[in-house]
C-alpha cells in the first residue's frame, strides 16, 4: 500500500496470515468491503452516474490529501489547506469577471488559473518559511493562515457569493475526458507525477529522510530547509487547484464554504492511506485510496438515507480505526 512497503521483497510465507495482511493492506480491504456493501445494499450503485458523481467529488479531497501526505511525510501538518482553497477560489472569478478578463477572455482565463495558483503557492511559501526557517511547530505555523486566509478571501469578495457563467473555466470541474470527469484524470495524473517524485528523485528521498530523522538528514548534506519549504509549497499549490475545481463545479465562489473542514478530510485521507503522523512515509496512492474511502462512506450513508450528521460520526470512527491499526503495526 505504501511506496516503501512495495519495495520490500515478499517474504516467503508458509501459511497465509490474516493479521499482518490486514495491517498492511487495511485500506484496500476497507475499500473492498465498502464496495461490496454498496453493490449489495445501495440502490442503483452500479451505474455510470454513481461513478461520475463520486469521482467528481473525490478528486478535490484526493488532490489536497496528496499534498498533505507530502507535508506529513516530513513530520509536519498543514491546517491551512481549506483556507487556501477559499482564497484561490475567490481570486479566480474576481479576475475573469474583471474588465480586463471580459475584454481578453483567453488571457483572462489563463490569469484566472495562474494567479490563484501562484497566490496559493505563496501561502505555502509563507507556511514553509515559518516552519523551516523560524522553526515554528507546523500546527501553529499553519494555524495563522487557517484563521486569516479565509478572512482575506472574504474581505476580497466582501463576503458575497460570486456566481458566473464561464464554460471554459467550468471545464475544470465539469469537463469530461473519455466519459469521466476531467478532475479525476487530473488527480490521477498528479498522483503519478508525485509517485515518481517520491520514489525516483533526490527530493523525494530527502522528504522521507527529514521525516525519519531531521538532524541526520541535515548532517548528511540534505537541504532540509529547501525541501521543507518545497513540500508546503506543493501542498499550497495543490490546495489552490482544488479550490479552483470546487468553484468550477458550482459555477459560483463562496469564500465562507469553499474548502471548509477540508483540512480534516485531507488529514483523514492521508492517515487512512497509510501516512505516519511522525513522518517518514509518503504513500501517494494510499492518499487516493483514503480519499475514496472517505468519499464512499459519505456517499453510502447519504444514499441509504442516513443523516449527514451521522456521517460525521462515521468519519470519526474511520480515522480512529485507521490510526489504531497503524499504531498496532508499529509495535
Amino acid at each position, binding site marked *: 500500500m505504501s511506496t*516503501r512497503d512495495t*519495495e*520490500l*521483497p515478499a517474504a516467503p510465507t508458509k501459511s497465509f496470515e490474516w493479521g499482518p495482511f490486514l495491517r498492511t493492506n487495511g485500506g484496500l480491504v476497507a475499500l473492498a468491503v465498502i464496495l461490496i456493501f454498496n453493490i449489495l445494499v445501495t440502490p442503483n450503485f452500479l451505474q455510470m452516474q454513481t461513478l461520475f458523481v463520486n469521482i467528481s467529488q473525490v478528486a478535490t479531497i484526493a488532490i489536497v490529501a496528496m499534498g498533505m501526505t507530502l507535508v506529513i511525510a516530513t513530520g509536519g501538518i498543514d491546517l491551512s489547506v481549506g483556507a487556501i482553497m477559499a482564497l484561490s477560489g475567490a481570486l479566480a472569478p474576481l479576475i475573469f469577471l474583471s474588465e480586463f478578463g471580459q475584454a481578453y477572455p483567453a488571457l483572462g482565463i489563463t490569469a484566472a488559473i495562474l494567479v490563484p495558483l501562484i497566490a496559493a503557492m505563496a501561502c505555502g511559501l509563507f507556511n514553509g518559511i515559518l516552519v523551516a526557517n523560524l522553526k515554528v511547530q507546523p500546527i501553529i505555523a499553519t494555524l495563522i493562515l487557517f484563521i486569516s486566509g479565509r478572512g482575506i478571501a472574504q474581505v476580497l469578495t466582501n463576503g458575497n457569493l460570486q456566481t458566473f457563467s464561464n464554460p471554459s473555466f467550468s471545464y475544470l470541474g465539469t469537463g469530461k475526458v473519455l466519459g469521466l470527469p476531467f478532475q479525476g484524470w487530473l488527480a490521477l495524473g498528479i498522483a503519478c507525477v508525485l509517485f515518481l517524485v517520491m520514489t*525516483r*528523485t*533526490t*527530493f523525494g*528521498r*530527502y522528504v*522521507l*529522510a527529514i521525516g*525519519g*530523522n531531521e*538532524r*541526520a*538528514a*541535515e*548532517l*548528511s*548534506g*540534505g*537541504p532540509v530547509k529547501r525541501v521543507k519549504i518545497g513540500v508546503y509549497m506543493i501542498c499550497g499549490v495543490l490546495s489552490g487547484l482544488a479550490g479552483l475545481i470546487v468553484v468550477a463545479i458550482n459555477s459560483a465562489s463562496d469564500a465562507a464554504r469553499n474548502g471548509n473542514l477540508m483540512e480534516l478530510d485531507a488529514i483523514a485521507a492521508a492517515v487512512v492511506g497509510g501516512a505516519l503522523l511522525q513522518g*517518514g*512515509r509518503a504513500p501517494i496512492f494510499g492518499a487516493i485510496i483514503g480519499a475514496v474511502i472517505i468519499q464512499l462512506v459519505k456517499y453510502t450513508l447519504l444514499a441509504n438515507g442516513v443523516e449527514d450528521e451521522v456521517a460525521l460520526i462515521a468519519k470519526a470512527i474511520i480515522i480512529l480505526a485507521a490510526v489504531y491499526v497503524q499504531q498496532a503495526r508499529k509495535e
Partner: protein
Amino acid sequence: MATLLNMSGIDKAFAGVSALSGASLDIAPGEVHALIGQNGAGKSTLIKILTGVYRRDGGTVQFNGADSVISSPRGAQEAGIATIYQELNLVPLRSVTENVMMGYEPKRFGVLINWKEAHRRTREILTQFGIDIDVRAPLGSFSTAIQQLVAIARAVSLDARLVIMDEPTSSLDASEVSVLFGVVKSLRDAGVSVLYVSHFLDELFEICDRVTTMRDGRTVDCRDIAGTTKLDLIAGMLGRDPDDIEQAGMTEFGASSADVDKGAVLLKAEGVSTGPRLTGFDMVLHRGEIIGLGGLLGAGRTEAARAIFGVDRLVQGQIDVNGFGAAPDTPAAAISAGFGYLTEDRKAEGIIPDMSVRENLTLALLPKLTKNGQIDRAREREVVAHYIKALGIKTANMEQPIRELSGGNQQKVLLARWLAIDPDVLILDEPTRGVDVGAKREIQAIIRDSVAKGVGVLLISSEFEEIVEGADKIIVLNEGRIITELTNPGITEDTLVRALAQTEGQAA
C-alpha cells in the same frame, strides 16, 4: 554471604527472539557490584526486568529475602530500588528541585506542595555531592555532567537499598567521576548496594567489589574483582582466551605507521574559534594521516569537528581546504568539499531508523547519484552491495530497515555512508562507542584501510588505547584550547594521561 538480590534462571524473549536465557545475578548488601558484557549481552534487559519495565518470561527474583512483586518503575522505587538509566531520565525544562523531588514532594495538609521545604532538601542533598547551584533554575540550563549528578542525587534521595547505575560516567569528566566515586563509596559505607554497569573497565577496579559478566543473554561469570585483570574481563566478555588478545594488541590499529611518508596537505585550520568552547584551534591534516583529538568531556573535541564540518559558524580564524580556501559553511558544502563526519550520537544524528540500509547508506552520496533530479537506482544498488560486502555488514538484505540491525552494524552502515562519497577527510567522533568488542575491532580495521588509501582522519575517542595506537599525532585540548601536541611513535597511554593531568593541573 547474605544476599540482597537474587535473580536466577531469568528468561526473556522479544517477538520470539531470545534476549535472556537463564541469566542470573546475585548482589550482597553493601557491595558495589559490576555488571559487564558486550552490547546485546542482555545487561539492560536484565535491569529492566528487575525494575519492572519489562515482565520476565521465566525465572525467580528475590529481593530483600522475599519474592519480588515489582511490576512497574514506581513499584521498584517503592521497594527500594533506584535506577539511573543510561539515557538521562530527567525533564530538562523543569527545575532542579522538581527533578529531584518529583513524585515525593514534601506536602502541607497532605495535598499542597511545600516548595520552600522542597528547595531546602534539594540543596541539602546536592551539597553532599559538592554541587552548589540554583535549584529553582531549569535543569536544562546546566551541563550534562551536573544533570547526571542530579539524576544520581534523585536516586540516592529515595532511601534506596539498591542503586542501579547504567553507564553513569559516560558523560562525566575526571573530577566529576571522582565526586561520583565518593558518593558510591559513601553509599556502600551506609550499607546500600550499588549495581554498576559500565563500558569503562578501568573504573571497575577502582570501586567495585565483585563483577558479573554476561554474554549472549547468559551469565557466564561472577567473581571478586581483586585478583582479576582487565584482560580477564575482556576475555570473559568476548568468550576468548586471554593470551590470544594480548598478542593481537588492544586495538586493530596495531603498530603505528608514522614512518610512512605523509601526503599532501588536505586541511589547514588556523585560529579557528566558534565561541567559548573552542578558541584558537590550529591543525594541519595530511593525506594518509590520523590526527587524534585528546581531552576530557567538554574539552572542545566535538566542537572542533563541528567547526570543520560547517555545522557551527566560525567566529574567528579560517579553514583551508586542499590549499584553495573557503571554509564550508554548511554540512552540504563540507560534503561536496570531500568531508565526511561520523557523529558521536548514532541515534539522534546518524541513522534514519525506518529507512532501509540502502537508503541510509547512500544518503550523503545522493547528490552524486542524481541526474536531473533523478536517482540512478542501478548504481545505487551497486554501491550498497559493494559496501555491505566490503565492510561485512550483517543484514538480511539491503532493504532491511536499519533500526533492526545491531549497534555495530548500524555504525558500519554509517561509516559506509561516508566512505561511499570517497572522502578526502573523515571526521570520526567516537566511532566505536556503544558497539561490542568484536565490531569495534572491525571498525578500527576499516579506518586503518581507508587511511592506507590516502584518507586523512580526524579521530575523537574516549578510549585512550584507540587514539594512542591509532593516531600519528594527538592534539590535546582543554577548555576549548590546544594544550599540547604528542607525536607517534612514542605515545603511550601513560604519556597521554600525563598530558591530560598536566592540563588539569593548569586549569585548577
